[in-house]
């Protein structure tokens, strides 16, 4: 700590609240959204988007990517490039599955 540390308690509590609410929303959507008439494709996209938002909140605020040196963000986000290549290539195969979920 070269500079004086700052108190982030309020931010942490806000993020905690957001994570809690998003988890509850996610569970409710996961269990009931189909019976409300949401199509499966929408459900999957919604759930994965919510999970990614939660993971992002943890990485940015709790893992201090926002406050730390930008170099750490470069390292932290680099697996996403590899992950997207993998998902893209696998999606080519998934699209031709006989029981394709969409």
């Amino acid at each position, binding site marked *: 700590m070269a500079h004086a540390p700052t108190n982030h308690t309020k931010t942490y509590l806000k993020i905690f609240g957001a994570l809690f609410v998003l988890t509850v929303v996610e569970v409710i959507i996961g269990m009931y959204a189909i019976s409300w008439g949401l199509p499966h494709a929408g459900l999957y996209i919604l759930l994965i988007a919510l999970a990614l938002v939660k993971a992002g909140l943890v990485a940015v605020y*709790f893992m201090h990517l926002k406050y730390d040196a930008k170099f750490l963000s470069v390292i932290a986000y680099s697996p996403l490039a590899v992950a997207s290549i993998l998902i893209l290539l696998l999606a080519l195969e998934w699209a031709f599955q006989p029981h394709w979920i969409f």
Partner: protein
Amino acid sequence: MAEVAIHANDVHEDVHPAPATSTGTTMGKVFMWLFLCQDALMFMGLFAAYLSVRIGAGSVWPSPNNHGTAEHYPLDINLTALNTFILICSSVTMVMAVQAAQFGKRKSILKWLALTMLGGAIFLGVQVYEYIHLITGDGMGMGKSLFDATFFSLTGFHGMHVFSGVMYLGAILIGTAMGYKEYKQTTITDWIFRAISVGLTLYFVINVLGSWKDGGWFLKYFMILPLALFPAYFIPVVGMVLFFWFGPFAGWPPIPHVAVSLVAGSLPYVMYRGIRWVRSRRDTPEIVEIVGLYWHFVDLIWIILFTLVYLL
């Protein structure tokens, strides 16, 4: 042996912060992030494999959203949602411990670290309860179906991370509580802990191999010594010998059991060295920040895992 224990409540006068490098941050954080990247890629492989079989199975897969399978869905979403909540809570206490470390509040660090460990322990307890319920109650098992195999490998791999995290936090907690100390290269305590670990490993391995039905004599008399003397370092070598020699000739050996024995047996010595390492360092904020990164990563993976495995 020079012993300088810090008795002051606050550590910041004694803290020597780790120097920043040309990256703009410290070596420790850069290397923990690099480790987390390769760990993320490992999880990515498991997730991709899971998604492939999940999508291949489509509506046949047990899921709370498929009309055919929702009634027989074996996983308890409410219990696991509670578990997710506990892990998120432990993430918050962890970030409070990091903040306490940055402000140099020693007692506060200990309190928040202890709460984080408690959260991790409860999480593991619930997971063990869930596993027992699924295996004995619902008859699930690693080799029963693709659903079971992906479920156990993903949650088990993550649970292993939580267990390591609790041990890691424990070493930081005990080391911080005991205070700074200068160490010699090798002390008598080192030898005591080495003896404990060797003894424990011997005990575990003999137990495991004793229950292996036949062909165990060679292992019992010739393999146990290197196993016990060099726990952890010999896992690949011993694993290869077990696999290629005993696989075809003497029936498949209990390789996972031997590996678990080696890890469990080395634990006392590894923990002792970890605590010793923490005590020999003066950059407490840095050390707590790094364990924080690991712990938040475990939480982050669980957030994704919960959605993909339980809710999809």
